[in-house]
C-alpha cells in the first residue's frame, strides 16, 4: 500500500487531488459521475458577500488547448451559501473549501468570518486573482501591498486554514507569494486564469461580452508549472498547483515542481470523472516507480 496522504500544514488530505473553484459547482453536479469521498478536497464556487448575477452572455470561448471564461463570480452570496447550500453538502466525506471572492476588503472579511463559523468547512481559499470582476478582485492579487492588506484583514477573523489563490498576471509571482506568506497565509494555490481575449474575425466582435476573460486548460500548463516551481523556491508554506492538469502525469509534474496538492479545473468539463482517474493514475505511477510515500515526490524535480 502506497501512502497518498498529504498535509497542507494542519489540513490533512487523503490524497493530493482537489477540484478547482468555479469548475466543480458545489460538488453536487458531480455526484452522478464520481464518489466525492475519493477526492482530497473540493473547492466550491467563488462566493461573495452579496448576490452577483455575473457577466452577460456570452461568457465562454474555446481556444487552442484551452478556454476563456467570463463568468464573473455569479453566485447567490455567502448568506445563501451558509443557509441553503452548506446544509446540503456538509456531509461530504472530503475537505470542503470555500473560494472567497470580493471587491472590497470588508466584503472579504465579512464573508470569511461567516464561513469561519461553519463546522465542516476546514479552510477557505482567498481568491485575490479573479480577472473577471471589474471592481478589482484581480487588482488585489497584482500588487504586493494590496495582496498583503487583504490577507492581513481576513487573517484577523478567519481562524482555520487560510489558502490564498494567486494571479499569474504579474511580473514576479514570488513577490506576491512572499507577501501573503508574511501576513499569515497557511498555503498558496496557483494559478488562477491568465487574462486573455478572443475575437470572431467574421463578425469582427469579441467572443466574450466582457471582451477579455480568463484563460484555462492545457494551454496554460507550462506557465503554471513554472510559477509553482518559482514559488516553491521562494516560500516555506505549502503550495497547491493547478492550471491545465488533464491527467495523472500532469498532476505529478506539478508535484515534482513543488506542489503538495493539485487542483483540477477545466478538465472536469471534458471528463467529469477525471479527478477519480487522476487519483488512481497517481497511485499507479507510484507503484511503477516504487515510491511508497507521495510526499517524496513533492519538489523532487532533478535539476542538473
Amino acid at each position, binding site marked *: 500500500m502506497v501512502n497518498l496522504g498529504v498535509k497542507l500544514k494542519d489540513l490533512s488530505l487523503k490524497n493530493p487531488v482537489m477540484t478547482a473553484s468555479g469548475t466543480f*459547482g458545489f460538488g453536487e453536479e458531480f455526484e452522478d459521475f464520481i464518489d466525492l469521498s475519493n477526492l482530497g478536497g473540493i473547492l466550491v464556487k467563488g462566493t461573495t458577500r452579496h448576490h452577483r448575477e*455575473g457577466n452577460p452572455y456570452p*461568457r*465562454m*470561448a*474555446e481556444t487552442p488547448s484551452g*478556454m476563456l*471564461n467570463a463568468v464573473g463570480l455569479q453566485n447567490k452570496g455567502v448568506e445563501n451559501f451558509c443557509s441553503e447550500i452548506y446544509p446540503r453538502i456538509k456531509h461530504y466525506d472530503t475537505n470542503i473549501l470555500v473560494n472567497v471572492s470580493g471587491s472590497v476588503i470588508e466584503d472579504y472579511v465579512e464573508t470569511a468570518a461567516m464561513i469561519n463559523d461553519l463546522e465542516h468547512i476546514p479552510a477557505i481559499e482567498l481568491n485575490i486573482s479573479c480577472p473577471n470582476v471589474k471592481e478589482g478582485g484581480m487588482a488585489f492579487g497584482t500588487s504586493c501591498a494590496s495582496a498583503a492588506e487583504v490577507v492581513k484583514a481576513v487573517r484577523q477573523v478567519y481562524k482555520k486554514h487560510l489558502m490564498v489563490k494567486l494571479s499569474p498576471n504579474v511580473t514576479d509571482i514570488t513577490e506576491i507569494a512572499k507577501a501573503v506568506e508574511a501576513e499569515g497565509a497557511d498555503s498558496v494555490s496557483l494559478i488562477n486564469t491568465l487574462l486573455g481575449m478572443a475575437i470572431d474575425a467574421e463578425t469582427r466582435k469579441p467572443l466574450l461580452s466582457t471582451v477579455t476573460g480568463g484563460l484555462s486548460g492545457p494551454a496554460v500548463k507550462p506557465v503554471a508549472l513554472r510559477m509553482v516551481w518559482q514559488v516553491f523556491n521562494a516560500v516555506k508554506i505549502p503550495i497547491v498547483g493547478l492550471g491545465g492538469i488533464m491527467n495523472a502525469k500532469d498532476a505529478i509534474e506539478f508535484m515534482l515542481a513543488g506542489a503538495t496538492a493539485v487542483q483540477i479545473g477545466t478538465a472536469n468539463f471534458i*471528463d467529469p*470523472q477525471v479527478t477519480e482517474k487522476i487519483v488512481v493514475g497517481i497511485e499507479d505511477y507510484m507503484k511503477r516507480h516504487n515510491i511508497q510515500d507521495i510526499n517524496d515526490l513533492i519538489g523532487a524535480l532533478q535539476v542538473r
Partner: protein
Amino acid sequence: MKKLVQDFEVLQRKELNDDHFVLDVKALEPLPEIRPGQFVNVLVKDSNTTFLRRPLSIHFVDYERNTISLYIKKIGDGTKKLGELKEGDTLNIVYPLGNQYSIPNNANTLLVGGGCGVAPLLYLAKHLNQAGNKVTTLLGVRSEKDAVELDAYKEYGNILVTTEDGSFGEKGYPTQHSILEKEKFDYVFTCGPEPMMKAVAAYSTQKNIPCEVSLENTMACGFGACLCCVTETTEGNKCTCTEGPVFNINDLKW
C-alpha cells in the same frame, strides 16, 4: 435523472445531404429514460483544434436497438470529425442532459424546425403522438434536397415543408406557411436559428398559444458546473444546460 458518461458504439452514419448526417450510436448498457428536448455532450477525438465536448440534441431514441440517433450539421472541425466516424468506432457521451419539452394531452400541436434545429423534433413528435396529441411538423429548409427524413415524421403525424427556393412544399420561411392561418393550434414547439424561433414566438404570442423553444449557446460542461451557458430570463440568468435548453417564451426576454 442520473447523468452518465459512457462509451457508445457507432452503428451507422447516414449522409442526408452535403453537410447533414445522422449518427446512430449504440449504448453498451441499457439506456436510461431519455426525454424529448434533452441533449448529449460528445467527445471529439483526433481533432487538432477541438478541445471541449460538443453538445448535440437527441434526435431519436430506439430502446429496442438500445441506440440514440444524432442529427448533425458539419460546422467546424469537431462536427466534421464526427462525420468521419465509421461503424464500430467509439464515441464517448455525457448524457442525458438538460430539461425537456412539455407533453400536453389531446392537444393540437405544431412543431417548427429549421436547419439542424430539427434535431430534437422527431423524438418530440413521437412523445406527443404517444400522449394522444395531434402532431403537425413544419420544417423550413433551403431546397428539396434538404427535406429529409419526412417519412419518419409521418409516423407520428402530419409533415409540412417550406423551401426557400420553392422546389418543394410551400415557398418561403416556415412562419409564412399557410397552415399557420388555416389551423388553430394549442401548443407550439420550435427549434432552429434564432431569427426563425423569434418569428415563431411572435406568431404564438400574437395567437396566444403557449410556445416552447430550445436554445443553443456556448457550453463548456453541459451539466451545470461552469455557469458559462446562461440565458437571460425574466427571473435573471438561467443555466441553459440544466434549466434549459427548453424555455417557455414567456420566460425569455425576447
